């Protein structure tokens, strides 16, 4: 019983924004069995539970290049544009992002608002 209690928090990735949490098996840029594939950032990686093939990986999240917050790759929590940015930092520096991204975010904000109202 003891080892598991200690083990589990160490190996669990938790998004600081949405609280999504899941165990990870690897942190870095070269997950196992990825061959020619390299990640462009240090990521929390797990096995893809939805793939029948056990060798497939799934990136859960990484750290924001600005504030170092641990965030998941979900589009509500972070954005990758050459680097990882958490949504809070994106909003802070929105003007530095290309307008395609700005438009996309505005659109999403709008639609989520519409859904709420």
């Amino acid at each position: 019983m003891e080892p598991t209690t200690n083990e589990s928090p160490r190996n669990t990735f938790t998004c600081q924004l949405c609280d999504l949490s899941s165990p990870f098996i690897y942190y870095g840029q070269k997950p196992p069995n990825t061959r020619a594939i390299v990640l462009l950032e240090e990521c929390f990686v797990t096995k893809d539970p939805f793939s029948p093939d056990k060798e497939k990986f799934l990136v859960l999240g990484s750290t924001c290049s600005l504030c170092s917050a641990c965030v998941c790759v979900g589009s509500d929590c972070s954005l990758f544009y050459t680097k990882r940015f958490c949504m809070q930092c994106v909003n802070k520096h929105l003007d530095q992002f290309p307008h395609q991204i700005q438009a996309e975010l505005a659109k999403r904000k709008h639609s989520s608002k519409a859904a709420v109202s």
Partner: protein
Amino acid sequence: MDADKRRESRSWDWDSPHCRAQLDEIFFRQHDYIQAGSPEHKEFWAFFDRFQRFKTKRDMSGSGATRREDREKGKDRRKTSKVDLGLPQEYDARYRINVSVCTRDIEERLGRTEHRSKQRSSGPGSQEISDCRLALLHFLDFSQRQSFGKLAKLRREQKNLPIFQYRDKIVGLVRSHSVVVVAGDTGCGKSTQVPQYLLSAGFDHIACTQPRRIACISLAKRVSFESLNQYGSKVGYQIRFETTRTTATKLLFLTEGLLLRQIQQDKTLAQYQVVIVDEVHERHLHCDFLLGVLRSLLADHPDLRLILMSATINIKLFSDYFNSAPVLQVPGRLFPIQVIYQPIPPEEQSSRTEKLDPRPYLRILQAIDQRYPPEERGDLLLFLSGVAEISTIQEACQVYATHTSRWIVFDIAPPGVRKCIISTNIAETSVTIDGVRFVVDSGKVKEMSFDPKAKLQRLQEFWISQASSEQRKGRAGRTGPGVCYRLYAESDYNAFASYPVPEIHRVALDSLILQMKSMCLGDPLSFVFIDPPPAASIQTALTYLKEQGALDSCGELTPIGTLLAQLPVDVVIGKMLVLGSLFNLVESVLTVAAALSVQSPFLRSSQHNPDCATARQPLHSNQGDPFTLLNTFNAWVEVSKHVKSCDMFDTVSMYVFIYLSSTGEGTERWRLKEVVQEERLGGAATRNAPSGSDREQRRKRLTERRKLHQMKRDHEQQEGGKRKVLRLDEGQDGEFSSGSDTEEASKGKKDKTEQNIDIQEVKFKLRHNVSELQEAVGVGQDLSSRQQALLKLLLCRGLYPQLALPDEHNSTRKDSEQVFHTKNKQGVVIHPTSVFASDPEVLHVPEDDNSEMGPDRKDSSRHQLLAFVTLLETNKPYLSNCVRVPALQALLLVANSVDSNADCTRLIVDGWLELELREPEEALKVLSKALTLRAELERLLHVQLQQSKLGEAAVQGMSRRSIEKLGEGLVRFLLYTEVTYSLRRLTAFQTQNLYIGPHSDSELSHTNAPGLSLLVPGGEAKPDPIKGGLSVTNFFTYNCLTDSRDLYSECLRIFWSCPNCDLYMPLTPLERMQHEASCRPAGEQQQLEEEPESAKTGPSSMSSLTRVYHCNVCNEDLTLTSTEILKHKRQHMYSAK
């Protein structure tokens, strides 16, 4: 510039398989993340096509302008921002992908191909390679997003479950209390989430019991999936004989029965830290018992944590039972439900024997159609009491549905069409069905009840309880506000019982009591049940177990009882297995036992199909239904040997066979075999494969298994995730799912059956070594008439006292009006599925053989009885699964009580059957033979049981020959006994004055003189204290019947010569029987001597037959054979006179 390049490599064609193969060589090689030929690879090229189309479209709409604009904006933004993020000025979707494909080796290749492309060769140019790489990156990003989306959705759903907010509270309660009750209605997530909460809180070795096997498997799968397989093999299931449990398993789903068996082995249940008992509200027999056992176990294992999970029904009962354990109640997610009482008008109420009137149900369908527009989705769930009712209503609904095209029965309905699900009470709490908005509650449930006096099971319709009624209503409010139509009045509802009657109050407790005995739980009457069963029920079970020889007269387990308690089958079937393993009939008995312990593979509904009946015809055996099952199983295995999967089946016989594989008969059989071998019963059954070919065979089997696993995976992938949307014209062939564990296959509509059969077969093959099965069947096939006779005897002995007597007037009645009588129930009929329902003549006493001795007396040597598996009362009392046996022989060999008059011409069996034999000489012979055979059978069985305890080594040499000898003797006795007798049932009046009773100073008193109490094999003949007469063996009482024609015949001596030894002297009937029981043919005596058993007693050939006899007259211990003892006693008798 782009366009130029593209023109340059005009010879490149993206659609050409050749060109794609060249790119495969670069990106999808054998060791790459995605390999050519894999499903992902296929997906990639499909993605590629879409991606190219998208790019072309975007290029055409001229994104150049936006790009320029973007650049300008970028300049502005530099000025305003405080921090420079260093983002590229020009937007490219590529920058949003956090993956790259390492291209070193590709670039090498690129160098070469660039060279070639200048020479206009057909290889991919750098443009093509980078196009492909870009598409690959987008593809990888796309699949990442897809999978992550699923993960996020899963986590969201977990969070949205009502139980989620109690997560910490539950863990806290479990930490601080040894027993916790978690109550929440179906769909609150308790079964899937609570075990996960405990796992992530660090608990280890968690067991979670389920009432149904199928739930164990599906929950293990679900929890393993939800925890993203992070626990891998740490989440497993274990059901009878099938397990995914490993040493790494931390969470195990298992059946209640199995946990009980584990407690039998491991008294304190030290292997678990937490035990979760799920669905305790269902109040199954095993569950109630398990709770009782766990309750007493907590004292010995104080660290054990026990969690009871229940629907919100009668929670206080559980909490109180465990010393006011804390209750955590999870409110369900329930929308308001409108209740409409719509009692059925008297003219539409059907009586017990009539079909259900569908009109009230159709009116509701109509009302829904009128009141709610088709765009408003919401399906209907209909609660009925049983299968017959379901098919009646289903038929009517189907007609209505075809007419209106607004309804469909089962699966997902297309938009605008409502689904109508017709179910029994199984859908109350145990099955989650989404999308239900309307509920129709018939208010009825069919329940099995048990009449302990007649040992009769009754399937009767009852009003449901208020608790069930509320559960049914609740099913309408899971996804939105709903409507519940109750086909009864509110006053009816108020009169309903609060809770359903727990199973422990309704069923036979034989197995339960046996298990309690083997777990040393003391007196069953004083065991603290959560809701104690009636004492009479317990008493009946105790008596039954004593009758069956599982308990001795003090209520302690006998050796055979100990064995039966370990076999995970009914006592009756257990007995057959034990006996079958003694004789060389293991294979056949296994098949029959397995077939009898699962649902019948024959569909009731297909019985009316003439093609189906014809197809089955050759399988029928007029010996009895178990033989039909045996033939069917053998035929199925035989067929699957010769032909590949389903192309050999015409649709009709397919029904038979698919049911065989899906009801798991084969599986059951396999499992039983494992048990039998485990219990070391199957000495003769396990033939050792020649060791040379052993490895070869194993290797072949391994390859085969791998192939099968692949097939199964492919099938799952195909099926996985796809939701079936029904077509309106489907499912109109009167198919319905039976709502039991084995319903899977029955859902298959005709057109899907083929696909189904494949996967069922694959699954079956995965579990079993089919070739081994075929080999075994080969052994079991084509039973000789001798084997058949023996098998019948074994079945009969297993089934005893479940015997039925054909009514004497049956031969003058119509086939459909044949009547039978059991000891406690008169006028029962044969279930229409039985072979004897269609072929009753084989049970009649042959006419020519029939010499009338009086109005009530038919003499024949061919009287027969039926041994049956169940007596079930629905609208009539039905016998099902019958086998016919020769009456006299079978009774003498299996009955617990045989009483005779002085010359043994009148026999009363079990106090209800009277046999009158015409010839005293014949009577004596047949009785004597039976006594001998039975004594030998008991002896060998005892030795076998002894050995099953000690180990197999000793069995082989010891009794093989005696067993064969006995088998032969039994067969001869069963088949060739030609004794004329009459057979009838005693009237109630006759049974009152059957016995002379104990007599102190009557004329016959001298028979009780110590000098006359003769030694017989197995004990001393004592006067029977109740019946009178002499109890010769534990089942035979001599001369205790009142109407002995001749009071002196008992001591009348007739000269008789023994065929085995040279004895020739006047003997009374009893003396003669006793001599015969101990005197064996000379040849046999030789054999006896060779047996190791007799070697123990002494070296001399005589010693095996002699015993120490204490003569009261001489006051001396003498070592004599039985005959010598007899002579010795007579000596005193004469001298005394």
